[in-house]
C-alpha cells in the first residue's frame, strides 16, 4: 500500500478528507461571524452542512457502509426544508424592515 503504484491506483488518505471538511466548516463559521447580510449568512450555513456531508460520505466509503450516504440524503432533505422556510422568513423581515442587515434585528439582544 505504500509503494507509488498502489498510491496512484488507490489514492487519497482519509486524513485529507478530514482536513478539507474542517477547512470548509471553519470557512462557514468565519462567514457567519464576518458578514452582516443575512442571505450570505444562510449561504455559509449551507457551506457548513456541505462540509459535514462530505465527511460523512468519506467515512461511509472508508468503512464500506451505506448508512452514511443515507444520512447525507436525509441531511439534504432537511437542508432544503430549512432553506425554504428561512428564505420565506427573510422576505417577511425585508418587507418589515427594508433591509437584510442583521444589525437591524437586535430586539432580542441583551
Amino acid at each position, binding site marked *: 500500500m505504500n509503494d507509488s503504484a498502489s*498510491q496512484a*491506483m*488507490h*489514492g*487519497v*488518505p482519509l*486524513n*485529507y*478528507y478530514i*482536513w*478539507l471538511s*474542517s*477547512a*470548509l*466548516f*471553519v*470557512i462557514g*463559521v*468565519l*462567514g457567519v*461571524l*464576518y*458578514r*452582516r447580510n443575512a*442571505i*450570505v449568512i444562510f449561504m455559509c450555513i*449551507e*457551506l457548513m452542512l*456541505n462540509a459535514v456531508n*462530505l465527511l460523512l*460520505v*468519506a467515512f461511509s*466509503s*472508508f468503512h*464500506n457502509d*451505506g*448508512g452514511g*450516504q*443515507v444520512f447525507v*440524503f*436525509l441531511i*439534504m*432533505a*432537511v*437542508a*432544503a*426544508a*430549512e*432553506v*425554504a*422556510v428561512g*428564505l*420565506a*422568513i*427573510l*422576505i*417577511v423581515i*425585508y*418587507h418589515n424592515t427594508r433591509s*437584510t442587515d442583521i444589525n437591524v434585528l437586535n430586539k432580542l439582544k441583551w
Partner: protein
Amino acid sequence: MTLYVFYFLSFLAVLSALMVVFSRNPIYSVLYLVITFFCVGGHYLILSAEFLFAVHIIVYAGAIMVLFLYVIMLLNLNQATEPLKTHFYRFSALISAGLLMLVIVAALRGAESAEIVFGASAEIGLVKNLGKMLFNEFLLPFEIVSILLLAAMVGAVMLGKTHMKNSSVTSEKTNGLSADPAAMNIKNAKQFTNE
C-alpha cells in the same frame, strides 16, 4: 491520479468558499457557492457515491441556489451596498475562526491515517443498494422526512400569505386612491382568493 484530482477539487472548493465569504456582492457569493457545490459533487464522484452526486447537483446547485438567486433578485440586493462590520468585529471573527481551526486540527491530528481503497466500496453508492437500504433499515426516517418537507412547504406558504395580507393593508392605509400597481395586484388577488 485521483490524488491530483483531489488536490485540484479541494483547492478550488476552499478558494471559492473563501470568495463566498469575502466578495461584497451577494450575487457573486451565490455563484462562488455554486462552484463550491460542484467541487463537493466531484468529491462524491471520487468517493464513488454516484447517487449522492446526482442528488447533490439537483438539490443544491439546481434548487437551493436558484432559490437564493431568486430571493436576491426579488429583494433587489444585487449591489455591494452592504456595510461591513467594524474592524474589531471582523478581526475577532478571523481570530476565533482560526482558533476553531486550530482546535479541530489539534484534536484530529493523526486520528486516522488509513487510505480509502477505491473500487472496494463501489457498489454501495449505486441507486439500487442505497434504495434497498433506504426502504428497509431507514424507512421511518424517510417517511418522517416527507412529513418535514410538507411542514416546510406549508410554513413557507403561510409566511408568504401573512406578508401579502400586511402589505396590502398598509398600502391601503398609506396610499389611498393612488395605490401603486403592485399593491393593486395584491389587493385584486386577495379579493379573488376571498371570493
